């Protein structure tokens, strides 16, 4: 019988230091069994459990797009037991992945719509997956305008820098990269907190425009009024949550917000959905 606790075996194929303070690394995995790769068929916005035998498991958003074949990518912040163990691993090491888990950004609803993607700090992983997915030539025509506001403390703390600057050059996506502060005079982009840049640069809402917001709680808190002042309704604001998790499949009970389970009914919710919950996140 199919065992949802059994990870697919994977090999670490690449490890890249993602930020100047080395607190984030991007890991690229390949599946040991090709049939597992086929079974791991994800949509942008989903997450997976990274499993290190002997250490434990952690839920991490999938940073690679479904359109990128042959590998899966995750960007992980070093904070506790499992993330530290992962940061200490080497290319070639064997570990496990369970998933894909949870729901995804509502791509069905978003078809034909304009999108503003708002990210802060290291919560840009599934947003990267989403951007790569939408920019894929096979998908780009399915969406209207795409705006991206992405901010970090400093230029060196921005994730996926090469890609960000590549996207800056394209004319089918409007990038608004920002940093909290910067003493580099050659910095050619924005300086200021994400909510401020949202207010200044994000498109005004109409019924065909949606916002996806991922970031630390404080950023989310101040971005909401910014979006509301631009006319976004609660059903047009889409967020991804990170409650503590263990099973990832709706059984262990800890990730609940009222009767919703973040691992199964989420992690993606509209603000309208969340307003109906006790908001324990």
């Amino acid at each position, binding site marked *: *019988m*199919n*065992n*949802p*606790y*059994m*990870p697919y*075996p994977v090999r670490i194929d690449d490890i890249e230091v993602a930020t100047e303070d080395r607190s984030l690394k991007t890991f690229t995995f390949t599946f040991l069994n090709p049939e597992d790769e086929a079974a791991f068929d994800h949509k942008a916005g989903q997450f997976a459990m990274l*499993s290190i*035998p*002997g*250490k*434990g*498991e952690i839920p991490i958003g999938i940073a690679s797009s479904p359109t990128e074949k042959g590998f899966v990518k995750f960007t992980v912040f070093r*904070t*506790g037991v499992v*993330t530290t163990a992962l940061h200490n691993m080497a290319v070639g*090491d*064997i*570990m*496990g992945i369970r998933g894909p888990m949870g729901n995804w950004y509502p791509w069905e609803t978003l078809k034909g719509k304009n999108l503003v993607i708002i990210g802060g700090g290291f919560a840009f992983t599934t947003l990267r997956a989403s951007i790569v997915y939408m920019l894929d030539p096979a998908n780009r025509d399915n969406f209207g305008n795409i705006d991206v506001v992405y901010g970090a403390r400093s230029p060196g703390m921005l994730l996926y820098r090469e890609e960000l600057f590549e996207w800056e050059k394209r004319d089918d996506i409007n990038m608004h990269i920002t940093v909290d502060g910067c003493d580099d005079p050659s910095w050619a982009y924005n300086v200021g907190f994400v909510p401020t840049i949202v207010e200044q640069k994000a498109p005004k809402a109409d019924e065909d425009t949606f916002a996806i917001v991922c970031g630390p*709680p404080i950023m989310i808190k101040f971005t909401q009024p910014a979006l509301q002042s631009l006319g976004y309704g609660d059903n047009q604001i889409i967020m991804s949550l*990170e*409650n*503590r998790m*263990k*099973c990832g*499949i*709706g*059984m*262990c*009970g*800890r990730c*609940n*917000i*009222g*009767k919703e389970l973040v691992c*199964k009914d989420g992690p993606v919710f509209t603000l309208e959905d969340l307003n*109906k919950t*006790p908001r*324990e*996140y």
Partner: protein
Amino acid sequence: MKVIKIDKNKWTKGLDTARESYQLFGPVKIKENHCFAPLKRDQQPDMTVVDTVLSPKSTVFPQTEKLMTATLDTSKPNHHLMERADTDYSPRAVIGIRPFDARAIDLVKLNFDTKDHRDPYWCDAHDATTFVGLAVNTPSQFDFSTSMDSGPFDEKGLDVLLVDMDTGYLAKILTPKGEAFMACAGFNREATAGDLQKMEELKKAAEQAITTQVETDNLREKSLLDLHQAPFWDDVAFSCINCGTCTFVCPTCWCFDIQDETKGNNTTRFRNWDSCMSPLFTLHGSGHNPRGEKTQRVRQRFMHKLKYFLDKYDQGTMCVGCGRCVKSCPVNIDIREVCNVMNAYEPQK
């Protein structure tokens, strides 16, 4: 529905015959307290105890359970590859489980056997188990099962319902699993119409003996957010010391943690009972905690049992009225009172 009559002096011999095909579990005294455990060769289930301190949920959901194992020895070809732990799922029977506890296992099934995923550990254990229940003729003062969609003779979740008739048992066979067990034990004498009538009388008497009435009829219509924001939670939680006893003794609490343990090169992934009463349960790596306050955790326990579960499955509350948490709570927090308060709550508008 077949009802069989078993002489008490044939009971032990029947169980011994069944032991050849089933591993038996039953209530036994361990140190000071009764709990459900695998019966040793000569051990008999104690058919007199009404509510064991811990519920029999451990028979399908052990307090600590091996999920997977792996070797970390890189010279082995299968190093770091998890394998399902080797667990014995040969037929077992739980003897003397009380009806509210069987009802609880039936409710917990809603969590572990879903259309999206089937928890193979819980489900395999459940599939392997025959539940031979024992009706409660004399309910304890803590029993309020009749208010919670169960009762002293409730049949839900059971394969056989035994009724203690003093000199013997009547065994109501409820499922093919139950039939197979009874046949295996060699119990086959049909009960008489008089026996059945006596059984009905015992049932009525037992139901009437439960005098605690807990009100649940309004819970479904109440707004989840109103109840969550109700002003009484601080009062309810005030004396709670967050010991978690209420969740460990409860037959319907199923939350668990997953941990890896390594000895030398061998690692095992376990799951352990966990408790929403612990702040660690929801603590994020960043230090943020959505239920960092005691009141939030106490509210979570009652809201999950009496509202979230009800709204999610529409199969009643996630409390079967066994009364264990009431009896065991060191500061006398009483779900019967909390349920009545929730059921009667009208928000001030």
